[in-house]
């Protein structure tokens, strides 16, 4: 029985895909007279099946050696592609996390999208989304992983563009797709190169190859950078970070997944690629640099946002920046632990944010206030999620960060400083949003704010429980440091940074209007942060401008030079024909003379050598 479940574990991601296919009749309008809810229920059911199957598999692989499945796919000439599946406690655990969060997000969506006309399309896309992520974490083949990453890009595009009639959504979907695609194409370059160098695309083959590979430093650096680019786009790291912020225009249930597990998938791939990246110190340094820049930059930007979803999404980038640093420093355990705790806490925060948006129809923090008294479940969710995210109370993220700090303590004290800074800034940001949204007087938008329906409240309750229970689960799984190993200085520093952040967040003056400081420097800083360091403007005048002018030039060149030359030849031949016709006099004597002279010249030319040679 269990053996059968293990062997069919590749089905777990497929369930989501089946759900997506099952929604097609409703999504395409083949079935119109019945409500679209059935499609949603079908998808939720398929996710439930995946969750049960996954749990059973998890009990089998827990603390067992990895179980490998090899599914041959395509073979041509000397090149074969197999879809290898690797089942161990980490990969199946990650898949369980994805399926579980997907299930909660879908139930949540029943409430959030109650009046949505295209419900079936949304659930179909969610099923597709879940399938891509689930497959990605158990995949042991870089080729399959790449394909699934692209599937994620595609489904992100479609989910962000779900409400495609709105102009902002159109731009957000476009930017999400193109930004990720930049990363994906660079990653594809790396994959193509690896498929030649390593002679195979399974992570195992690649791992063996890295032991013996002799790459010149430039090649190794280029390869490493290309491989970093894909996860950089997926995890919304600088310079490919802007899409996540814009993607907040999409429906919230998808945002829950996007900010918790989708970005995590990018980091997961990065962890898998780590052996190749660390072959080049340049690539490794770039990875750490990108992570550091994003961690600090995004934390700062988050402080100046007035859109509640955007503020939270920037903090996602910041946490993933920490993961980048961890992967660059080769502390995989820290990376995984942080990903896990961040995923659950961030999902909870996004559920809470979604409740606020649904109830008040606003996501502008300056328009909100006094929600704590009106929406207790939402408030509890926000507080629990924040506590899970910030290293103050001994929740999961606290232990994760502490773990990271202890590891970096000697080798990289600067990384410790980055963790502390990110923690403090995140605390300020979360407290700021909390005060604006939940405390104070009710504003016109929040006067009538009933608590959300049970479809949304129940998933929040479950995640509140999960966030609170996570430290105990970690303790049970021996993933927390034992008392003797705790670096108490680090623990004290971490707590202090959180407390300082909370204190600053509580004390700064906040207004329910979008105030612009009078002092020029402050004003400059505020604008700089509120507009994401003007990175998008920078893109507009560099890359976008370059491609646009190049394509305009190409089109001009094509039309006037290439095609112009052709038309000129055509015109010249017509013109010469037209003009030559006037030289024809119609006198046969003249024609005869021309022919005679012509033939004479040709004859002379042909026999020239014969005429001269005898004389020599």
């Amino acid at each position: 029985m269990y053996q059968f479940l293990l062997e069919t574990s590749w089905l777990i991601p497929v369930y989501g895909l089946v759900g997506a296919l099952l929604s097609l009749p409703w999504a395409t309008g083949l079935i119109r007279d019945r409500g679209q809810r059935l499609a949603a229920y079908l998808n939720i059911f398929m996710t439930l099946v995946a969750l049960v199957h996954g749990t059973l598999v998890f009990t089998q692989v827990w603390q067992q050696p990895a179980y490998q499945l090899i599914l041959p796919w395509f073979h041509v000439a000397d090149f074969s592609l197999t879809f290898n599946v690797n089942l161990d406690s980490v990969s199946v655990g990650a898949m369980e996390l994805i399926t579980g969060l997907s299930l909660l997000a879908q139930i949540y969506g029943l409430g959030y999208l109650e009046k949505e006309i295209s419900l079936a399309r949304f659930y179909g896309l969610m099923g597709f989304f879940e399938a891509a992520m689930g497959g990605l974490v158990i995949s042991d083949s870089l080729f399959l992983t790449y394909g699934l990453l692209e599937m994620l890009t595609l489904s992100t595009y479609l989910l962000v563009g779900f409400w495609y009639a709105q102009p902002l959504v159109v731009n957000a979907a476009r930017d999400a797709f193109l930004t990720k695609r930049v990363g994906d194409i660079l990653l594809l370059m790396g994959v193509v190169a690896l498929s030649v160098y390593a002679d195979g695309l399974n992570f195992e083959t690649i791992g063996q190859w890295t032991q013996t590979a002799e790459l010149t430093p430039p090649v190794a650096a280029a390869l490493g950078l290309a491989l970093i680019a894909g996860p950089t786009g997926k995890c919304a790291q600088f310079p490919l970070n802007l899409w996540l912020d814009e993607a907040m225009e999409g429906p919230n249930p998808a945002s829950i997944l996007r900010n918790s597990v989708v970005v995590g998938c990018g980091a997961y791939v990065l962890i898998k690629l780590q052996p190749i990246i660390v072959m080049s110190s340049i690539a490794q340094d770039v990875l750490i640099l990108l992570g550091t820049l994003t961690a600090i930059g995004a934390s700062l930007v988050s402080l100046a946002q007035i859109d509640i979803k955007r503020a939270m999404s920037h903090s996602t980038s910041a946490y993933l920046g920490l993961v980048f640093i961890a992967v660059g420093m080769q502390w995989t355990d820290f990376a995984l632990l942080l990903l896990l705790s961040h995923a659950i806490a961030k999902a909870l925060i996004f559920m809470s944010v979604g409740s606020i948006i649904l109830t008040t129809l606003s996501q502008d923090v300056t328009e909100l206030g006094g929600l704590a008294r009106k929406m207790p479940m939402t408030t509890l969710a926000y507080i629990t999620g924040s506590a899970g995210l910030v290293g103050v109370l001994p929740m999961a993220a606290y232990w994760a960060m502490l773990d990271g700090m202890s590891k970096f303590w000697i080798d990289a004290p600067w990384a410790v400083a980055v963790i502390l800074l990110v923690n403090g800034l995140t605390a300020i940001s979360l407290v700021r949003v909390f005060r604006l949204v939940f405390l104070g007087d009710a504003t016109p938008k929040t006067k009538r704010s009933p608590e959300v329906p049970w479809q949304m409240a129940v998933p929040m309750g479950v995640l509140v429980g999960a966030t609170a229970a996570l430290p105990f689960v970690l303790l049970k799984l021996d993933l927390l440091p034992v008392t003797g190993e705790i670096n108490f200085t680090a623990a004290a520093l971490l707590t202090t940074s959180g407390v300082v952040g909370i204190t600053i967040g509580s004390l700064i003056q906040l207004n329910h209007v979008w105030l612009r400081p009078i002092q020029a420097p402050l004003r400059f800083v505020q604008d700089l942060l509120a507009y994401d360091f003007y990175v998008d403007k920078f893109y507009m005048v560099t890359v976008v401008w370059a491609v646009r002018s190049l394509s305009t030039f190409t089109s001009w060149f094509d039309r006037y030079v290439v095609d112009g030359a052709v038309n000129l030849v055509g015109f010249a031949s017509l013109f010469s024909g037209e003009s030559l016709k006037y030289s024809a006099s119609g006198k046969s004597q003249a024609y005869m003379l021309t022919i005679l002279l012509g033939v004479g010249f040709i004859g002379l030319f042909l026999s020239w050598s014969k005429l001269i040679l005898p004389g020599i």
Partner: protein
Amino acid sequence: MLLSALIVLPILGAVGVGFLPLNGGQVKTAALTLASVLFGLTLVLMVQFDPAIAGLQFVENLPWLSELGLDYRLGVDGLSLPLVVLNGLLTLVAIYITEPTVTRPKFYYSLIFLLNSGVVGAFLAHNLLLFFLFYELELIPLYLLISIWGGAKRGYAGTKFLIYTSISGILVLAGFLGLTWLSGSSSFDYNPALSQGLPIGPQLFLLAAIVVGFGIKIPLFPFHTWLPDAHVEASTPISVLLAGVLLKLGTYGLLRFGLGLFPEAWMVAAPWFASWAVVSVLFGALAAIAQTDMKKMVAYSSIGHMGFVLLAAAAATPVSMVGAMFQMVAHGLISGLLFVLVGLVYKKTGTRDITVLRGLLNPERGLPIVGSLMVLAVMASAGMPGMVGFISEFLIFRGSFAAYPLQTLLCLVGTGLTAVYFLLLVNNTFFGRLPSQFSDLPMVTWAERSPGLVLAVLIVVFGLSPGWMSRWTEVTTIALVRDFPIVKHQIFLQEAPKDTPALPS
């Protein structure tokens, strides 16, 4: 006899459709029936074909004008079989999507069958002169189809097409004649050994003539300007045939008569071809970004995508060659689908201008299914995994990287640019709010959607299970480059592949 039937039946059909006393509706029914029979026959051919044999099958050899060296010699192998089947399918699609109200229907359908016969003949011919005859035969109906049933500037486009492809034919013929006469052979039968006795100079000269000749047909930069004009002016069914099948004559010729007949010269010239491919790919992609007419955009994308085939042929490794065949079929299916959909949009809205169209995905009054299929088609064209475009591009890149790392990476940039222009197309035309001028578009029936659906399903099926396609062609294509030295990639490890600049976001 099966092969001859594939050539003769459409000619008989053309005569029958043209002269039998049928009225408008009956003509279309008759044409559809015949096209289905022809497609069925290609499927029969496929079933009876033995994929394990590299050489010719179903050979038919009749002496014809032996003094001239012209024999009626037909055969099918893994290089031509997929294209013959593709031709059958797309002819059926083209006839199916033809408006029932088309003017002069008898003449129209006759010409389509003549075109079908010419193309099949060219794919099956194994005598150089015979190939040339079919290659020219296919020009006349296509010229007439563009210049009679085309758009406003059809005369210009048709003439341009005719002049370009005639030059293409002359160059190819010159190459064939030169090869046969210089090698002292008296027969024009396809024979790869012909060039072996020739010095490398004349070989390169002849190869250049043939490659430029087919380069016009493919088309490659700078011989491409006939294609956007022809596509814009041609009616939708003709565009489907032109992009889906006719361009493949060029790439087929490149593999069969360029690489196949001149292996020695090919190896010498291959680095140049790889760079030429890069120029073509990037030029097509960049020019496509600047277009506002959907048909023109797809036409330029064809130039880019056909450039990949040249890259693969230049590398001439087993994997890249299979990739080249994949790319031909994939492009046939994908560009066919794109043109079918663009045609539907044009039919319903009356415009193809992406600056005018907006919000067509609207579920109630827009074209939601057409829009969804369009998203699928552009994603397939942009090389999204799970669809047939990706696996062909991946094989090409995998096969070419060892030999030409820099060129391969630059072509990959071209793939990235494909996403840029097609995303612009989808975002502009299908996303956004439906303007009032398009608020009462005519309904799209399932009958109109069905050809697009069939193509879409094929694109996904072959993308998920590429083995179903590669099995027909693998043995032959690999045998074609059997004598080429496999490039040892260890040499290239010393050469740094440059990291390419980021794309716009």
